[in-house]
């Protein structure tokens, strides 16, 4: 047992669990081989594996870095001391998540199928998304102004 631990790095149950896990996954892959679009399915899995970590994450991290640096350079009026960065982040992230989830509707990429299935067209979704985004930014802006007013009053009173 000690020999096993020294060479493997964990107990035998750990190895058994992982082998069972890979067996189930391998069996799932054999099932996919029987499907007509199997190449597409496997390729899509590879894309999903790198989709967030190697494509999405570098992009949104870089964008956030630009934002926080801008905040550092332009912190707003010094006397107010209410940072604005999250009032941009929040609407951008909510609106961006909606875009990432519903881009086929927003950019009308599935127009024919959509019309066949619903009897309507996808033209409304771009307007829906822009309206939701506008409401998010407006709400965030109003809350920022309220916080700004509140901190000024505190400053005057304090």
């Amino acid at each position, binding site marked *: 047992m000690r020999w096993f631990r020294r060479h493997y*790095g964990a107990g035998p149950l750990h190895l058994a669990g992982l082998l069972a896990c*890979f067996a189930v996954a391998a069996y799932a892959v054999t099932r996919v081989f029987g499907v007509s679009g199997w190449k597409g399915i496997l390729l899509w899995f590879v894309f999903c594996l790198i989709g967030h970590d190697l494509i999405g994450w570098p992009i949104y991290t870089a964008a956030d870095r630009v934002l926080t640096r801008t905040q550092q350079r332009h912190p707003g009026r010094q006397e107010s001391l209410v940072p604005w960065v999250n009032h941009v982040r929040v609407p951008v992230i909510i609106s961006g*998540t909606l875009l990432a989830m519903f881009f086929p509707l927003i950019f009308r990429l*599935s127009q024919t*199928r959509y019309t066949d299935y619903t009897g309507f067209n996808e033209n409304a979704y771009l307007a829906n998304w822009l309206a*939701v985004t506008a409401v998010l930014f407006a709400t965030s802006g109003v809350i920022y102004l309220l916080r700004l007013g509140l901190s000024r009053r505190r400053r005057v009173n304090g």
Partner: protein
Amino acid sequence: MKAVREDGPVPPNRWKSPVRGPWLTSVFGLVLLIGIPVEFITGLISYAAYNPRLKGNDPNPNHGLFGFYLFNWATSPAWLYRFIEGVHVMLGLVLVPVVLAKLWSVMPKLFAWPPWRSISQLLERLSLVLIVGGVVFEMSTGILNIDYLNPITFYPGHFYGAWAFMAGFAVHVAVKFGDMVHALRSRRMRTELRTGLANTRSEPLDGGLVAPEPAPPTISRRGILALVGGTSLAVFVLTAGETIGGVMRNFALFGTHYRAPDSGANHFPVNKTAVSAGITASKTGPDWRLELLGPRRVSLSREDLLGMALTTADLPIACTEGWSTVQRWTGVPLADLARLAGATDHGTADLRALESTGEATLSASQVSAPDSMLALRVNGADLSLDHGFPARVIVPSAPGTHNIKWMSQIVFSEPG
């Protein structure tokens, strides 16, 4: 070169977030630990609801051992499929922001250096391929399917992908559960919710997630939780009305069925229009007949059907894509049609639509369920062409695709 060998491609001091840490990761982890098994179980049930063991019903005919659990799908309560599928789709959408937050929170682990210290750790990291790839695969195939964009074959991809994903998920939970509990106990949620930006400090160094040289905080932990929760709430409000209905449907601005054609009795969402199915008025006019095939062969006009004993029931049509609507249907019980064709109601029924636009096999219990009917009217008016005129099948708790519209033929089979 020396630095790369010692610290890897991204040295620990390059990570700057002061809020990343085991506690925050574990909060997201706990939500997913509850949510993802619900997704898996509702997904498996949803597949069973197709009654895949009956002829022509199986979207994954080569399911092999993964079909071990299949059972005869229930017809009562009538809202069962609507509920299961509504939970599956809406919870799945709501979990997307949590999954993204979880992936962001563990990014430093991807670049952990050296990549492995033992064989056990190497295998563990390989199993992460299944959960990182798997969770994005399941989310993306599900979402693209409800958005009507199918770059890959949906049913087998989503089904077999779920099994591979859950294999990795089970191992990940087994390995990390203790760490999660430990991390959750390291801080109090109530204290975190009272801690603003000014008092936000890094979690104690853990040699992995916590940045050794953090930047000053720009958001508090409660701020991150509110942001992720708020994004989930926004997704919920903007989609869930599709299945909850009522006033909520007007807010489902990113649902595919928040609008309904027609007005009056037929004013509810359509799945597949008559035009797209090639159904024209001439095919559904006075010459239309419903053919019943059993020990006897019977041909019925719409007037014949309306002359039979009719039943009325409030039943949902619930789509695999998650949307649903409950309407008041009036029609001939399927069991009566079976008897008319000389069949007992203990056999299956093969449904066929005009122009081969739809086909499904109903189980014996679906044929004999009291509210199962060939609907002729909805909400007191004749069915519209888009809703399946002259006649459509409605079966309690069946997936929408089995409620065949524009019916032309029912083949009743004897049991055995």
